[in-house]
């Protein structure tokens, strides 16, 4: 698979200390996997509460309180970004040659853009809403898209070893 685009980048990754740490100890990969799963649980838990509120469930939750979940969601995402980069440095050709990985990354980007749109364009208008106020249609769309993208990320991530294993 050394005809992949950016293959010189992947070759460089294989020479880095990150690669040595990820592959050099029997506990490295299982530790990264465990952290990746812990991160995904916290991220999805926070997102479920946030997005279900945006869609219109549990309207007794004030939108300011929804905002207070964001640091936890972002911290969990950061753990998964770091551990994910670790996996990629450990086995770049396996991921880069797998369409399921790129589908997952595309969904992460879409989810990120959806979040930025919510953060800058939608949330400022919502913070005036009190408890029990219905959310506008735009907020419901953001909530549905967020859950769709993130569950898609989870599914493609878990299916990665079984779909399109063209790399390696």
């Amino acid at each position, binding site marked *: 698979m050394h005809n992949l685009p950016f293959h010189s980048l992947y070759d460089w990754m294989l020479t880095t200390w990150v690669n040595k740490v990820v592959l050099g100890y029997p506990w490295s990969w*299982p530790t990264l996997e465990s952290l990746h799963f812990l991160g995904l*649980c916290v*991220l*999805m838990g926070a997102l479920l509460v946030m997005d279900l509120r945006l869609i219109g469930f*549990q309207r007794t*939750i004030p939108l300011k*309180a929804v905002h*207070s*979940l964001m640091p936890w969601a972002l911290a969990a995402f950061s753990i998964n970004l770091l551990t994910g980069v670790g996996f990629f440095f450990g086995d770049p050709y396996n991921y880069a040659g797998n369409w399921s990985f790129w589908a997952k990354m595309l969904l992460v980007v879409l989810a990120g853009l959806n979040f930025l749109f919510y953060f800058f364009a939608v949330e400022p208008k919502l913070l005036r809403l009190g408890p029990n106020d219905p959310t506008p249609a735009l907020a419901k769309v953001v909530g549905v898209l967020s859950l769709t993208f993130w569950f898609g990320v989870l599914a493609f991530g878990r299916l990665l070893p079984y779909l399109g294993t063209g790399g390696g």
Partner: protein
Amino acid sequence: MAFFAWLEASGLAEWVRSSSVGYPTVITLHAIGMAIMVGLCVIVDLRLLGKFDGIPYQSLQRLLPVAWVGFGINSLSGTGLFVAQATMFATDLMFIAKIVLVFLGAATAAILQPELAKAGTWPGGVPPANVRRVAIISIVFWLAAIVTGRLTAYIMIFI
């Protein structure tokens, strides 16, 4: 052991093992159910320990049925994954530890759910010390369940 061998020879076990869609579908459902159950339970635990204090306890109590849907998905998908390799899992201490921790985690959720309904009577909105203690234990059980569950794929300790 004969029972686990019988499970392993069942049609469901055969399907999970050999169908090209069986195992990937079941393992993906297992990750989705985990995210829903553990994710919501950890948010509830953190709320009881004083985080995101703008979220009313009662609204989280009403979200817990969603968590139980996740648990249901995982009971079914987990049964499929178990029967596919029943004789192996039944003798693997890592798996046994994981499954015990999962049920202990679920038990803490079942204990906390009715407690959340009493939140209106908590002075200053602070849960009683025993409820906070269950919330801490709950987080520990879930963290340990995730780690041991993930490690079943890497480290087997046969008894």
